């Protein structure tokens, strides 16, 4: 039996349960204490022998999904899925709010001054609608005119732009054709000179 005063610490150390602040000093102690060093070896050999006994594979998986007893009742499943679904909860809240509004509308007390309000509504001048129609027609005509003018301006600008581009392209083409013509003329002159030289040299 180990009688060293640090024997209890040694056991905790063997299982990696010794406080970090004590580990270093105990390791130094073990280095100088043959009894503790031997005891530590024995403990490690014993736990190593125990760990040689392997874990067994489970003979069959724990049946969980397939076993109905594990599943919550249908009512509970519905309640849980309901509370976990923000969309459903929002829809239900909207339904409750709508129902509350309908009930509130049906149960609202009658307003006494409703009749005078209706009378005022019917007392509107008859030619008011004609004035409104005329004003609407005038505004519509004005808008149509503005739109037509805007369209005409846009079309004219587009035509001008197109004509200008076409003119530029035509000029560029004429310049290119002129350059080609000059080149062909020069080449023809060169060939004529060469031909006349050949004729002059021949005996």
């Amino acid at each position, binding site marked *: 039996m180990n009688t060293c005063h640090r024997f209890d610490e040694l*056991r*905790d150390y063997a299982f990696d349960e010794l406080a970090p602040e004590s580990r270093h000093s105990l390791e130094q102690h073990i280095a100088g204490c043959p009894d503790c060093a031997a005891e530590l070896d024995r403990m490690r050999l*014993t736990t190593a022998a125990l760990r040689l006994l*392997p*874990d067994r594979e*489970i*003979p069959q998986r*724990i049946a969980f999904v397939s076993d109905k007893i*594990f599943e919550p009742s249908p009512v509970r499943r519905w309640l849980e899925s309901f509370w976990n679904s923000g969309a459903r909860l929002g829809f239900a809240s909207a339904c409750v709010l709508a129902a509350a509004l309908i009930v509130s509308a049906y149960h609202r007390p009658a307003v006494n001054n409703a009749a005078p309000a209706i009378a005022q509504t019917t007392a509107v001048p008859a030619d008011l609608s004609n004035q409104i129609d005329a004003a609407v027609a005038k505004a519509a005509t004005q808008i149509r005119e503005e739109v037509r003018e805007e369209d005409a301006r846009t079309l004219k600008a587009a035509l001008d732009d197109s004509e200008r581009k076409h003119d530029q392209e035509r000029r560029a083409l004429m310049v290119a054709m002129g350059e080609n013509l000059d080149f062909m003329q020069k080449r023809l002159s060169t060939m004529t000179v060469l031909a006349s030289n050949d004729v002059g040299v021949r005996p």
Partner: protein
Amino acid sequence: MIFRAVEDTDLISRVRRGDLEAFNLLVSRWEKRVFNYLLRLTGSPDDALDLSQDSFLKAYQSIRKLDDPARFGPWLYRIAHNEAYSHFRKRRPETAAEGVDAAEREAAPGFPMDLSLAVTAALDRLNPEQREAVVLKVYQGFKFDEMAEVLGCPVSTVKSRLYTALDLLKAELAPINTRGTR
């Protein structure tokens, strides 16, 4: 282990929201460890499998009572421990929590017969509390505070049981150790 603890915590919160598949994942992670823990307590694969099943059922039913999801492991083993001791009491009321006879145990397959039998026999000579302390520490790798939670006793008691068991095991397994170092 920290990464795994975070993942277990996430799975537990999903289970609490009614996600059954998340609990299936938890079961698949823990079933082998729980089965082997119970196998080393009972010595019977059939009993260990039944008790594992019951433990996971209890865990699912009471997972909302788990205060700290990061302590899921010790909490689950506490349930398994209670299931095992309840089983012992039902099976042999007069010798409750005595574990299993050495004769009932089988040698581990794929393991040298003499070593397997020697280690198994040495474990069987321990009393149930000592054996469970060894199983939780050596085979399941729990810390002392976690073992105290599983066993429902103070850390000092856990250490006392474990170190007494180790003294006995050192004597029992000394010939093997000597042979192994020869």
